């Protein structure tokens, strides 16, 4: 159970980040690329400084920086977002392969350890699962709740949603569309980097080429599952985390199910979940932000 939460945390960060980028009208399909960049640079920094917390921070920033390439292309230069996102993914996988060669199979020097929250950790069942974790997991709780508050209870949340739903109207209200989109795309990058860094610093503390193995794409799918709501993202992320750790436990217990079929589960399940979620989203008439993926030209009418 506790490992499900850890496995889910890898997905929770980038999912929330993408929810916010998408709410502002930016479809960044480069999550996989930003995650692998965060995973690699976070891992290297954690190893060089022998400090997992510094490593995590560096990984986050690396993801954020990577998102700025995407933001410049798609927001300032109005390039096609889908292709730019794919380019970012190819870039991230390429650059980490290029620099990562000598780090392959290196273990993280100093791992992060769990810190039990006094009081809360003693609650039966829930306590050990949710409140006897590492600092990054607590950080993800804060992020999820804080971002829900920002999105639905603050003025900047209203502005953000306005930009994603109707950029022209938002612009007329005096909100800077480009600045809003830049900011939330950058935040999305930071969180994607955080998810990647969590993977190599806590969950699997070593480096492998392409270690994110499609988790970025699962996060894109989870955004639909979460219906663009950070709180639902928690449920989605832990659900997938649970399936992931179940798969490892099954493999470790020496089941007769072929390992390839077990490894396929998360992707197959994500596909099914996306189909169902799309169905519900449509039935409830709560769709994606209306201007998702569309560039904003101020001069056009």
């Amino acid at each position: 159970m506790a490992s499900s939460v850890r496995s889910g945390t890898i997905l929770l960060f980038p999912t929330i980040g993408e929810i916010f980028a998408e709410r502002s009208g930016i479809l960044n399909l480069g999550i996989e690329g930003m995650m692998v960049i965060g995973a690699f640079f976070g891992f290297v920094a954690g190893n060089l400084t022998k400090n997992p917390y510094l490593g995590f921070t560096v990984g986050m920033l690396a993801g954020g920086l990577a998102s700025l390439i995407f933001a410049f292309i798609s927001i300032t230069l109005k390039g096609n977002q889908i292709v730019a996102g794919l380019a970012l993914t190819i870039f991230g996988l390429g650059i980490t392969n290029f620099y990562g060669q000598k780090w392959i199979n290196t273990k993280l020097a100093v791992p992060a350890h769990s810190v039990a929250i006094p009081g809360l950790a003693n609650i039966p069942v829930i306590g050990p699962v949710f409140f006897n974790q590492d600092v990054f997991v607590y950080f993800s709780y804060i992020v999820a709740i804080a971002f829900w508050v920002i999105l639905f209870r603050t003025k900047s949340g209203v502005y953000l949603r306005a930009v994603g739903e109707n950029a022209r109207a938002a612009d007329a209200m005096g909100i800077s569309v480009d600045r809003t989109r830049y900011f939330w795309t950058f935040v999305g990058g930071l969180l994607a980097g955080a998810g990647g860094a969590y993977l190599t610093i806590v969950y699997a503390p070593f480096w492998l080429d392409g270690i994110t193995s499609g988790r970025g794409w699962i996060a894109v799918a989870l955004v639909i599952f979460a219906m663009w709501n950070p709180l639902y993202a928690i449920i989605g992320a832990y659900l997938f985390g649970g399936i992931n750790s179940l798969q490892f436990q099954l493999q470790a217990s020496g089941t007769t199910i072929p390992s390839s079929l077990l490894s396929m589960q998360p992707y197959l399940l994500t596909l099914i979940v996306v189909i169902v979620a799309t169905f519900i989203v449509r039935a409830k008439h709560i769709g994606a932000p209306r201007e998702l993926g569309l560039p904003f030209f101020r001069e056009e009418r």
Partner: protein
Amino acid sequence: MGLIAGGIAIIFTRTNPLTVYHAILVGAFGSTYNFSETLVAAIPLILISAGLLLAFKMKFWNIGAYGQYIIGAMCSSYIALHVSQQSSSVLVLSLMVLAGLIGGAVWATISALLKLFWEVNEVISTLLLNYIALYILDFFMHGPWRDPASHGFPLSKPFPACAQLPILLHRTRIHLGLVFGVIATIVIYILIKKTRFGYENEVIGENPTAAKYAGINVFRNTLIAAGISGGLAGLAGMAQVSGIIHMIQMEINADYGYTAIIVSWLGALNPIASFFVAIILGGLEAGGYQIQMTMNVPFGIVGVIESSILFALLGGELFKTHKLVLRRKKSHRQIQ
């Protein structure tokens, strides 16, 4: 632009980027044999990108060429592994081509149907199907298809001679797949420029609502475009296992499925232009393998260069449609 970005990345490893680029160029075009290897790498890129641009033109974002390639390769391998040595080569290869086309097309059609019936985002569905295809291959390679003589490695029996595509040029690895690529490019060109389907395809891409009101059958057109793009990716997979690898294994270079997306985009979704871009990026791939072998420069640099070129192109598109006017803010010292 892309080369500069790649160069910066190389400088950080304390290697001279110019030396690396020179080595890539030599590796790609330096000799007849090197150039033939460039063409070998270009074959799958030509086939896949020809299909993808058709789908991209109507804004069906097929990112799943990777998986369609794998399924195509697997379907044709099934035939190759189940024929006798003495079978007619023409018959076996035709069946394999058909199997590759159908396998890839079916895999792409899944996403098309999900989109048409339930509005499931095709970027996500094609991508997830890539991983699913990979693990299906993994299952077969660790189970039914593993050759007992492979000492536990996930390799199949070698294909019989009748299931191998003939070599076109002596002493090279250029195989009949190149002809498939040329045919595919011409067919797609005609389809886009000369047929009603091509025209309708473009209208759907530009304005799906208008297309619907104009009586264009979006359902049918989407299915056809998705099917053709998947089919050609499957054919590329078939050509690779039958023409180059001569068996089925885990590593069948399915990454061409992602590179081909870059190819079709750099070729401005034009089949003829994509054909030549495929040869250039084929050179980058071939040169990339060369420098990995000889200079120990990781292959990832190829991805960095390709994606940087793509970034530059995407950013540059704005300047094709919009004029840039630099205006200086009025200053007090302005001359009257």
